[in-house]
């Protein structure tokens, strides 16, 4: 058996470990500094969305969408996934024009999941939407899932596939050995493996830096609000063309509101903080697009820490300084949907050095200025 280590117990680390453990000949250990799902994996909005993806991400996202439709086959649990659709509303004729151009562009590339709808259809899909909404882009079989339940399902599946998960272990160093393997030093002694995955999220660039590789990457602390339970009034997950919004009602009746409004990160302390002056904008946009929630009581707000490269796209590829180390991080707040497919791609890269999955656009070489 060949040995592999996955660093990071978020959803991408778990998915990578799961896929690799199901590849014959691999013995996989996952190291997590705190506990599985500690940061953004466990607390994100749970959007399972192709709609509105940056063009280089669409191919991987479409494959991931197919995996979500059969998520029970992959991890033995439905992860709370409901294909209730994603809707991005247009609030003006300018928004509508933008939507039409976008969908034309996506369709020209051969994808058909995005669809422009008019005011009549958007009101049919979202009876509670404000009357000023004039139309939308819709992806009818997108949806949402329960983030923590998804993390737990991937964890269970990974362990059943033979992955050893070690929580409370922090990586302190990475280096090549004379035998061609990689030594991973931790605060509880060294590990050794032939392949290592760097799925450490916001802290992944720091691990790369330990091997002398500089990958430009900042952080995000997207803020979320959850309200008290309300009677059911909306099925799809809703966004907006010109404003930052993510809005959905859970099966329990609570409304979860996000959209990428940023709180503050403290990477060293591994905490992030809500800033209400900024979160107020999320509340305002939500209450303007769904006036019925203005009187709903907020019961909680939170943030999660996540890595964000300069172009808001993930870094997936082999290290340029330490062969055998593979990066997978920087999903910039939209990696939840991609996790089943990205994990499969990284596991293939680790096991056989290549993959047919469309992750080529995400190599860190894109940040290298040509000489």
């Amino acid at each position, binding site marked *: 058996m060949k040995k592999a280590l996955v660093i990071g117990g978020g959803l991408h680390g778990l998915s990578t470990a799961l896929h690799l453990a199901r590849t014959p000949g691999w013995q996989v250990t996952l190291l997590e500094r705190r*506990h599985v799902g500690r940061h953004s994996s*466990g607390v994100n909005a749970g959007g399972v969305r192709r709609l509105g993806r940056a063009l280089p991400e669409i191919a991987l996202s479409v494959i991931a969408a197919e995996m979500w439709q059969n998520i029970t086959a992959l991890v033995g649990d439905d992860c709370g996934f409901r294909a209730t659709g994603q809707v991005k509303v247009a609030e003006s004729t300018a928004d509508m024009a933008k939507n039409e151009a976008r969908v034309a562009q996506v369709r020209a590339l051969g994808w058909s999941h995005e669809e422009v709808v008019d005011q009549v259809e958007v009101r049919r899909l979202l009876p509670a939407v404000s009357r000023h909404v004039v139309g939308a882009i819709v992806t009818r079989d997108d949806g949402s899932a329960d983030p*923590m*339940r998804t993390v*737990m399902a991937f964890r269970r599946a990974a362990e059943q596939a033979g992955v050893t998960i070690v929580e409370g272990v922090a990586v302190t160093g990475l280096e090549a050995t004379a035998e061609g393997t990689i030594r991973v030093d931790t605060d509880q002694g060294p590990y050794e493996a032939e392949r290592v995955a760097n799925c450490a999220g916001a802290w992944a660039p720091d691990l790369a830096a330990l091997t002398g590789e500089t990958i430009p990457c900042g952080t995000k602390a997207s803020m979320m*609000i959850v*309200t*008290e339970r309300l009677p059911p009034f909306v099925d799809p997950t809703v966004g907006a063309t010109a404003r930052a919004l993510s809005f959905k009602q859970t099966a*329990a009746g609570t409304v979860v*509101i996000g959209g990428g409004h940023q709180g*503050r990160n*403290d990477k060293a*302390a591994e*905490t992030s*903080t*809500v*800033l*209400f*002056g900024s*979160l*107020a*904008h999320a*509340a*305002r946009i*939500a*209450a*303007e697009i769904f006036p019925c*929630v*203005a*009187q*709903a*009581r*907020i*019961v*909680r*707000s*939170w943030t999660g820490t996540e890595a964000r490269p300069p172009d808001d796209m993930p870094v997936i590829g082999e290290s340029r300084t330490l062969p055998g180390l593979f990066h997978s991080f920087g999903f910039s707040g939209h990696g939840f949907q991609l996790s089943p497919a990205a994990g499969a791609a990284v596991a293939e890269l680790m096991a056989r050095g290549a993959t047919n999955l469309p992750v080529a656009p995400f190599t860190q070489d894109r940040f290298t200025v040509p000489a």
Partner: protein
Amino acid sequence: MSVADEWTAAKDGAAPVAEKVDLLVLGAGPAGMAAATEARAHGMSVLVLDENAAPGGQVHRAVEARLPAKDDQDKDGAKLAAAFRASGAQYRPGATLWAVEPEGKVFWSEAGAARSVRAERLILCAGATERPLPIPGWTLPGVMSVGAAQIALKTSGLVPEGAVWLAGQGPLLWLYAVQALAKGGRIAGIVDLSPPGGLRRAQPHLLRALKAPEYLWRGLVWQRQVKRAVQVIPARDLRAEGEGRLARILVDGVAHPADLLLLHDGVVPNTQVTRAIAGLTHGWDPVQRCWRPGLDLWGNTAVPGVMVAGDSGGIGGARAAALSGRIAALEAGRALGRITTDERDGRAGPLRLLRDRQLAPRLFLDAMFPPLPEAAIPDETVLCRCEEVTAGRVRQAVALGCLGANQTKAFTRAGMGPCQGRICGPAVHGVIAAARGVQGGEVDPFRTRFPTKPLTLGELAALAG
């Protein structure tokens, strides 16, 4: 007109609030009133936020409506309230704080509108909160806490009617019985659930407790008075039953008709706000089995600029709370450069001696009245009322490898409802610790998140300007 004058002059809720203030005090109980008064004496601009309609907190609730004061407690409260009213601190009643951000930005709501201010320093005097006493049937209408009944007694003079039972343990249970009887209330009986051997446990602390003998004396008098008028049944098992509302209680299997059941299992520091502040550390009190913020002698927390005074830093009673409020205000004055370190030390010295004397009986009382054991809570008992999660389900989650209160949220939704664990937190935490067979300090506390009190989306949206 100075900023402070402008504030004092304003009378209604629409009064303007400055963008910045030297000191923000949360709570107008004994600690908050004393802190604000002391801080004003040293020239700080002070803003006091309090949820209630009038100053006093829980112990001195509505004290100004009972003037002239008759008993010692009301006399203390009336004195504090009068000094506070005259201090020139800006006082916002009906104001609910819901967030504290780094650099002292504080958010609150009053009359349905959200507001914010930047404070150089904070003294949080959030008081105590009742430890829940979950028993089978405690969610029935007709079952409430002794603390809630005491609020009704103090604000509206409401005495319970019909077949009223008190149950649980702790000094407040006896105090409430005394107060209710004095107001002409009738009590059918008291179910004493405290584990036997209280005096034996407390005895090693007796000598120290006698530094302030009036506490013990008062406690003995309360119990004697009550026992003369009311039957007291020592018991281990208590259930509430009824069809749609409380009809009877079962005391160790024996049924008694009941119209109202008042439960009490002691009080714990209210740490709802301090636990939500990033970096503010808490320590575990193994005797009273509760969290309390880590504080230095002055009331400084681990977060610079954020201080705690009164029972929310550790249960000490009203007099100790007022003293710690003044001590914290002196430290705030030093930190803001209003008084020198020598002046702070000089003024605080006698206050600290007085506070030590007030705190002398605490070890005795804490050992005498330990909280009831969570391991004994039957599986079918609802712990989290908002999400209707039973003790059995929490224990199941522990068996599945869920080691902390925060993971229990993901497994069971316990603590995820509108109260965000304010009511059930200590019980869920205790059940997890007992099920794991470890000390409570080894189980992480419920992480609280701002807003620590619910506000509407519309209120928050209005801040977007």
